């Protein structure tokens, strides 16, 4: 279980190689990289600044990674999340999980990224030419994606 909260960029290849290195019980590793997107047009993005809550961020990322490790039989897991000023195409976040079985790797990786979207104390400030600075609003679709994982629990319990 690794958690990194940092301003610098990360090397996806190095991070993923370190995750599986020497562990022959791993059959599959699932990973997700979130990037600063710019769809262009009238509101072309100049930059996105990520603010976070130092201390709480690390604590919560460690807690959710521990929960993923309780829910699925993981051999290794990793969350790297950047903060600070980023530009279009820059990497924001890397989540990776490895397991003997591919489905556990896939599901736990999706669980972690859904969770990060709604429960990690990060806030995004977008800078665009036309609209100036604007705080990104939380999306209902992200809450619904995160809630999926609770529903699974409830269904299993019924």
């Amino acid at each position: 279980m690794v958690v990194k909260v940092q301003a610098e960029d990360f090397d996806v290849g190095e991070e993923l190689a370190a995750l599986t290195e020497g562990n022959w019980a791993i059959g599959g590793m699932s990973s997700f990289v979130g990037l600063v997107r710019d769809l262009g047009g009238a509101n072309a993005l100049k930059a996105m600044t990520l603010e976070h809550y130092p201390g709480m961020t690390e604590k919560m990322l460690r807690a959710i990674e521990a929960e993923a490790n309780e829910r699925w039989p993981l051999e290794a897991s990793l969350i790297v999340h950047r903060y600070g000023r980023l530009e279009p195409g820059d990497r924001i976040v890397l989540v990776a999980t490895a397991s003997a079985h591919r489905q556990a790797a896939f599901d736990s990786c999706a669980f972690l990224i859904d969770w990060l979207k709604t429960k990690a104390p990060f806030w995004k400030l977008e800078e665009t030419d036309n609209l100036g600075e604007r705080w990104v609003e939380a999306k209902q679709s992200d809450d619904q994606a995160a809630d999926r994982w609770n529903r699974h629990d409830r269904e299993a319990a019924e």
Partner: protein
Amino acid sequence: MKILYFAWLRQKTGIDSENVVVPEDVSDVASLIEWLKERNEKFADALSDFGSIRVAVNQEFAELNAPVGQGDEVAIFPPMTGG
């Protein structure tokens, strides 16, 4: 009590972190926010809508009825947009 403000709550209040002595009748998150709103116009504006703010006490998410006291670290921020 240490209070932290993030994102547009930091911008609207003009404060990122402060140490305050709260009156004795401030006993939970709701009464803390009411007290902060009475400080000045900026706070009244920033904290006007309970629905758009989230609170953590000692780095754990907290509801409006969660107790707060003098030694606590309280953070006030909008809904998170990580990932």
